[in-house]
């Protein structure tokens, strides 16, 4: 009687409701990303015939896509560039490095941001799309600091082997002799070490792990990837704020995070050669400047092999670099002008300073600026 009405009314509701919940659960996040559509550099207004020099003559719109790591820097660059050129609109879709490279090599966007340089296959695809080789420009340097939470210890020196041992869970207590050896003056407590890593896939993880495997190959047996090795337990936390929060929440923790987010927390001085280097913007820019160009790259391609295992004084080897990838030829004059002007603003002192303020990145060295400018000068337009 009554009861069957209730049942009839509720059961479909249950099914539909639950289905809707699931749909929204797995649909919402990706979809918002996907809808921020990126059309290529299609011009909104007419280009003035002389696209050189005078910035006010620029107009139109420019769309890029790629790494989310440099997103807040890109926002600052876009704001600064649009202020100089009021008729220009620049969009950047932070869909991830992979998506950015994919769209760039298929010709969908005229520039891309990526935490990794294009590989050989992608370079070939990009050459097809551009009609000329692409170049990778390291314009965003983000030092990765290692914050730790250890009351009574304000300075902590750790050599690469010890860092790898800690994150590989071989060194499990703060009073371990290996740590004491680097820190003769500190009173290290008898406390278990809780390493904190990112639970989401991230360029920060990839660069940190890359550092460990290059600087301490014997102590770090795991593959280099943006995902933390699943056979390690440790603590995991989502995104940079999550890592910081986890480090704050418990004593005995140590994590890795973009230096901008670390603030005035105690951080590890990393062993480089015979000395220990605290992270700083200068030390991070120095390691990028001192790193050799990656093998087999063309003249203006600034893809570098980061010297993670550097022993040079004053270099801080744990950095994330994010490239801006552009073509060396643009058939569309307007797009070409917009790209060169935008990227040269990004590489300028002003652009690098804006990124440092907005995202805490380390401004690139003067030498790198010159290299980027000559790469931009080599771009053929029209």
């Amino acid at each position: 009687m009554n009861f069957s009405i209730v049942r009839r009314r509720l059961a479909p509701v249950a099914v539909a409701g639950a289905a809707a919940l699931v749909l929204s659960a797995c649909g919402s996040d990706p979809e918002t990303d996907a809808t921020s559509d990126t059309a290529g550099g299609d011009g909104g207004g007419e280009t003035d015939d002389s696209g050189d020099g005078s910035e006010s003559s620029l107009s139109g719109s420019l769309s890029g896509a790629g790494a989310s790591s440099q997103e807040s820097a890109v926002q600052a660059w876009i704001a600064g560039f649009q202020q100089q050129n009021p008729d220009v609109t620049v969009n950047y879709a932070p869909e991830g490095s992979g998506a950015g490279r994919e769209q760039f090599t298929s010709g969908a966007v005229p520039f891309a941001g990526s935490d990794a340089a294009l590989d050989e296959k992608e370079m070939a695809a990009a050459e097809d799309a551009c009609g000329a080789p692409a170049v990778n420009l390291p314009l965003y340097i983000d030092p990765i600091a290692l914050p730790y939470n250890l009351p009574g210890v304000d300075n902590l020196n750790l050599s690469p082997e010890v860092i790898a041992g800690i994150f590989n869970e071989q060194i499990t207590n703060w009073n371990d002799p290996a740590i004491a050896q680097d820190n003769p003056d500190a009173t290290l407590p008898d406390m278990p070490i809780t390493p904190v890593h990112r639970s989401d896939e991230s360029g920060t993880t990839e660069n940190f792990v890359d550092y460990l495997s290059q600087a301490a190959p014997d102590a770090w047996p795991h593959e280099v990837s943006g995902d933390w090795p699943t056979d390690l337990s440790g603590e995991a936390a989502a995104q940079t704020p999550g890592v910081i929060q986890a480090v704050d929440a418990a004593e005995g923790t140590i994590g890795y995070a973009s230096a901008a987010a670390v603030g005035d927390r105690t951080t590890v001085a990393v062993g480089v050669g015979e000395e220990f280097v605290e992270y700083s913007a200068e030390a991070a820019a120095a390691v990028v400047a001192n790193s050799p160009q990656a093998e087999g790259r063309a003249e203006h391609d600034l893809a570098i092999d980061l010297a993670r295992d550097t022993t040079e004084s004053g270099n801080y080897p744990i950095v994330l670099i994010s490239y801006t990838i552009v073509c060396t030829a643009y058939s569309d004059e307007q797009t070409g002008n917009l790209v060169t002007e935008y990227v040269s603003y990004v590489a300028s002192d002003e652009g690098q300073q804006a990124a440092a303020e907005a995202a805490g990145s380390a401004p690139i060295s003067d030498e790198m600026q010159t290299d980027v400018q000559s790469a931009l000068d080599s771009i053929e337009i029209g």
Partner: protein
Amino acid sequence: MTTSTEPATKPPGRPRRAKVRPGDRNFSWATRAAGVLILIVLAGVAAFLVREAIPAFRADPAEIDGGEGFFAYVWPLVFGTLVAAFIALIIATPLALGIALFISHYAPRRMAQGLGYVVDLLAAIPSVVYGLWGIQWLAPNVRGTWEWLADNLGFIPLFAGPASATGRTMMTAGVVLAVMILPIITAIAREVFLQTPTLHQEAALALGATRWEMIRMAVLPFGRPGLISGVMLGLGRALGETMAVAMVLSTGGFTWSMVSSGNNTIAAEIALDFPESAGIETNTLIAAGLVLFVITLAVNMLARWIVARREAFSGAN
């Protein structure tokens, strides 16, 4: 719409065959269209998931995360998803039952209404807020409990130590999920209990039953199918919940221990890895989404089956 109200204004009692008015016809079509639309959307989503998931099933096992193929990748996630939802249900169901009975049968009317609103309000809080609450308040406060469990009941694999230093464990995620699904279960249980025929309740009381006995004999059997539906709705939400789990849980590989860090759910894995995924990785995540879709569908069919089976024995008829 104005035409559809017309029949009500006519004097009653004319035994004439009702004319089909445009309003009736239009409304009937509109509802039918709505019904069909939801099926089309559902089929569309399923088709999309299958299409995007196929490359992951076909891919070389070495290309999938973990390097051992899709099923090796997805089963720990399925386990984590089911366990988190199960913990949430174990906590939320008795609590929701109690709250619903209190509102429907024990509380003074005015208080019952207020309490009902408050519980419903819990459903309006965004899951990100639950996540923040879980990380910043709940985890540090339950850490001691998990440590105690690991120290004293560590011989049971579920509580094997070492307990997480930050308290962000599967158990914590389960507690957060329990709070999140509480309003759904409570709201449905409350509505169903309120519909128990007054005659049944009065009959039980007239036979000398106490209030508890009346509830046991008249209200609970009548409300059981509704309660199960509510629990299944809650389970649906717990299975699909993304943000709160992604934020609260210290994710990792498979472990039996519910008080150390480790395990992950399908929805949280998708949320965490999708933004930086590309190529086959995206397909793998969508395939995991398909698995979640199938699990939820199975859970709902199971719920309907339980409700249908219990009908004959419910005692309500």
